[in-house]
Structures are given as structure tokens and as C-alpha cells.
């Protein structure tokens, strides 16, 4: 669906709202249930694994091998921060697109200027998202090295699936962001494109919001 075609025909909508924005909110509502199922499952199985490694407690197997509590809070805190900042970058990207055609006031400082640079913010968002994914890749591989795989125990299955689902959402978001960046570079995004940036942003923030819940429920609460 081309946004150009839409605006060209001035489609009548009952509420005056854009179709796609309604759809993305309905989609986000639906995603709430998706993640609710994943999070419930994680919490239901919490503490029910027969063998370790465990998230917050040490585990010694029959051979006397010691497994540390597996969750790495400092690293995850950093990645959480990164994702939060990507949300900030995203909202600024949207603002930049909205402001594109507003003339800069005389004597604008660097901050006012950079606020107009949608490419900067889109790129920043995407890079921060990729950094988050990098952290996750690091986390997953180190867990595997420490003896926790998706097959090891209930904790492994639920943990990797929950965070993996989230990671897949981030990945899709990063692709989406790069697509926007590519459009911005090829033909420039302006206020008329507000919608397509807005729906990407809503998706991105939602993914961030889900992480806020996961960070607390999975990592911090014991």
C-alpha cells in the first residue's frame, strides 16, 4: 500500500485516523497476549526445573561440578539501557521526520539542528537495536558454554524461547528500521511520511516495553 496513493486519493475514513495506525495498535494489543503467554509459561515453570543450571541459584550436579547462577545482571542491565536509549532515539527520529519541513529558527544550536536529522536517529535506533542483539547473542553463547541450552531443563526451554521471541521481534524491527533508513536516503522522509515512521516507532517502543517487563520478571525478581 503506497502512502502516496493514499494521500493522493484522500481516502475518507470514518474516524479520520489512518488505517495502518489502527491496525498497528490492534496488532500491539494482540502481541500483549502473545507475550503474556510466553511470560506466564516462564513464571509457571520458574523453580520447577529438575536439573540446573538455574537462573539465580547455584547448582551442583551429580559429578560434583558447580554451576554458578546463570543470569548475568550487569551485562543485561547494560543491554536494557541500550534498548531504552534506542527507544529515545526512535522517538526523536519520528520527531525529526515531523519537523523536516519546519524551517530552522535563526541561530539554532546543534541540538535543534540534530533534531531535524531523521537519518541520524534512525541509524542510531537501528545500531542500538543491533547492540542489544549483540548482547543477547553474547548472553546466549555464554549460557551455552556454561551448560544451559534450550534442551537442558525447563528453565532453559522457557528462558531461551521467551527472550528469543523478543529477540526475533527486535530483529524484525531492525530490518524495518533499515528499510526506513534506506527510503530516507533514497528519497527523503518528510512530514507526509509521518505515518510510516510512526507505526514503525510504535512497534519499536512496544518491543522495548516488553523488555522492561522481561527484565524485571526474568532477571531481577528471584
Amino acid at each position, binding site marked *: 500500500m503506497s502512502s502516496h496513493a493514499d494521500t493522493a486519493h484522500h481516502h475518507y*475514513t470514518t*474516524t*479520520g485516523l489512518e488505517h495502518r495506525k489502527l491496525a498497528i495498535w490492534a496488532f500491539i*494489543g494482540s502481541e*500483549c497476549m502473545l507475550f503474556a503467554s510466553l511470560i*506466564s509459561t516462564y513464571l509457571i515453570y520458574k523453580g520447577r526445573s529438575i536439573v540446573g543450571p538455574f537462573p539465580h541459584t547455584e547448582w551442583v550436579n551429580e559429578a560434583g561440578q558447580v554451576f554458578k547462577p546463570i543470569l548475568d545482571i550487569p551485562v543485561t542491565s547494560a543491554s536494557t539501557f541500550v534498548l531504552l536509549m534506542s527507544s529515545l532515539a526512535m*522517538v526523536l527520529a519520528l520527531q525529526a521526520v515531523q519537523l523536516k519541513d519546519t524551517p530552522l529558527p535563526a541561530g539554532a544550536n546543534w541540538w535543534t539542528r540534530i533534531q531535524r536529522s531523521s537519518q541520524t536517529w534512525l541509524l542510531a535506533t537501528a545500531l542500538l537495536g543491533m547492540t542489544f542483539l549483540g548482547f543477547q547473542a553474547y548472553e546466549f553463547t555464554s549460557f551455552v558454554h556454561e551448560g544451559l541450552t534450550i534442551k537442558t531443563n525447563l528453565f532453559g526451554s522457557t528462558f531461551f524461547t521467551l527472550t528469543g521471541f523478543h529477540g526475533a521481534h527486535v530483529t524484525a524491527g531492525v530490518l524495518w528500521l533499515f528499510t526506513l533508513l534506506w527510503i530516507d536516503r533514497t528519497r527523503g522522509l518528510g*512530514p507526509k511520511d509521518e*505515518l510510516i515512521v510512526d507505526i514503525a516507532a510504535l512497534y519499536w517502543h512496544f518491543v522495548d516495553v516488553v523488555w522492561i517487563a522481561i527484565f524485571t520478571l526474568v532477571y*531481577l525478581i528471584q
Partner: protein
Amino acid sequence: MSHDPKHAAPTAAHHGGPHAGEHAHPDGWTYVKVGAILTIITIIEVWAYYIPALVASPFFNPSLLIMSAVKFAIVVMFYMHLKYDHKLFRVLFTGPLIIAMGTIVALLFLFHQLSVKF
């Protein structure tokens, strides 16, 4: 949302389409400030995690939940500009959210991961 059609039609015609009926958007600084608040709450959360006395206290889990709920709400209201947007979006989001939360809580009770003492 049942706008009188006579008024609704022109709304769609101008470019404000996605934001019909909204209030003014906050400016960049507001977003940065919101980001700072989010960071501060996250720092408090992680800090609390490292204080054994806090972790042991019965208030640890509830306060973490409250803090993350606040973060959640801030992002949704400001970054997802639900606070400024059409109320229909709020309905589309909060309705499912309530059902989702209700389901999580009910499931946790059913699996005895939560319990109330009478």
C-alpha cells in the same frame, strides 16, 4: 469516535490524519528527560538487586513490579504518545493489556506460583 461525518471528512483530507484530535506533541527535551527518568529507575532497580537486605525484604518484588510498571507506562504514554493521541488507540491497547494481565495473574494462581493467605 463517532464523529459527525460532516466534520470527520475534512479531518482526513489534511495531513494531520494520523493525529487527528491530538494535543500538541512534547518537544525533544521532554523525550530526553523521559529517557533520563527511565534510566534512573533502571539504575535503582539494578542497585536494589545487589542489596541482599532489600532482596530479602517482602517489599522487594512488589516494588520492582511497581517500578517496571511505571517505566512501562511512561514509555507507552510518552514515546508511544498514547497520552496525546486519539482515545481510540488507548482503548485498543488497554483493553487487551487488561485481559493479558488478568490471564497472567490467573495462570500464576492456578499453578500455585502466587497465593493469597486468608
